[in-house]
């Protein structure tokens, strides 16, 4: 981690991968259903996102370079803004994929959204507890993608703000670190009226 002083000197234009939302968001979509992959691809393309769609958790890990194989040169430049994965997949489930992503240093900050056709509270809780950003009931709609995109774009801006907010020592002034930190949405409760605590 760079020192706060370095960050402040470079200013807000620092390139941390997505320069202030001018680039397209890159979304990795994981779903074993060909029909669903085609639909999610179109949803994302219409929303001006770059999409990489893969058919399994294993493929997703390969793509991300988390499968233990030697990482390719391309991986050093790989910027993923969002991962959307189906929950029920043969082999590795979306939940297992989520755990692997959150357990990696390279991609643990990337928001992961779980999609499922089944509205099972225990499943939703499990995913959110493991760090999923949101749990979306299928079929995924354009409004879901728009909402996610807004969140990511805001999050990218706010995250930068958060990292740059200088943490003042308590004795110096009235502000605590918490008050300086910008509010950003944390874990969303599952959509469509499944109520969570």
């Amino acid at each position, binding site marked *: 981690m760079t020192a706060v002083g370095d960050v402040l000197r470079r200013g807000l234009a620092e390139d941390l991968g997505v320069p202030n939302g001018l680039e397209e968001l890159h979304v990795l979509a994981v779903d074993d*259903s060909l029909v669903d992959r*085609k639909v999610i691809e179109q949803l994302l393309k219409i929303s001006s996102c770059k999409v990489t769609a893969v058919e399994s958790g294993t493929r997703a890990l390969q793509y991300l370079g988390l499968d233990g194989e030697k990482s390719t040169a391309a991986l050093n430049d790989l910027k993923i803004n969002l991962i959307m994965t189906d929950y029920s997949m043969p082999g590795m489930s979306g939940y297992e994929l989520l755990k692997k992503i959150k357990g990696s240093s390279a991609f643990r900050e990337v928001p992961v959204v779980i999609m499922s*056709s089944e509205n099972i509270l225990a499943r939703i809780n499990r995913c959110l507890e493991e760090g999923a950003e949101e749990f979306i009931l*299928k079929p995924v709609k*354009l409004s879901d993608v728009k909402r996610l995109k807004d969140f990511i774009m805001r999050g990218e801006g706010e995250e930068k703000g958060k990292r740059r907010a200088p943490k003042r020592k308590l004795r110096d002034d009235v502000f605590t670190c918490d008050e300086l930190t910008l509010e950003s949405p944390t874990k969303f409760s599952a959509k469509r009226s499944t109520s969570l605590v």
Partner: protein
Amino acid sequence: MDVLSHLHRQIADFTASLHREGFLDEQFTQLQKLRDESTPDFVNEVVSLFFEDCEKLVTNMARALESQTVDFKQVDSSVHQLKGSSSSIGATKIKNICIAFRTYCEAKNREGCVRCLQEVDHERVLLKNKLQTLFRLEQQFVTAGGSIPALQ
């Protein structure tokens, strides 16, 4: 009424009837909205993928249900897949049959499963014909100079 307006009207009426009769739901409308000038065939393509998938699953399930000892878990897995994809394209009738189908799988009720499979296949054929009619009308519309956005 000129050709374009006539076709436009036909398409609207026909689509409305498909919704009214329960063949299609809101999700199909959603998919139609995802078309743009560069991807006018998007819905046709997804629908084709669906029917290919559907036919394959039906064949697999028929075979599984003919076995001496039926592997209901396998049948259920296929139904789950079909339920998912039919939901994704807005094929309501097929999706609803799948819901009932799953309970028969859970109950290991072969007869019930076979009945559901027959219903699924029947609806598959009906829907395929209906959608082919729709796509034909849309093609005529485009050939006559109409544009896809006008159909959204």
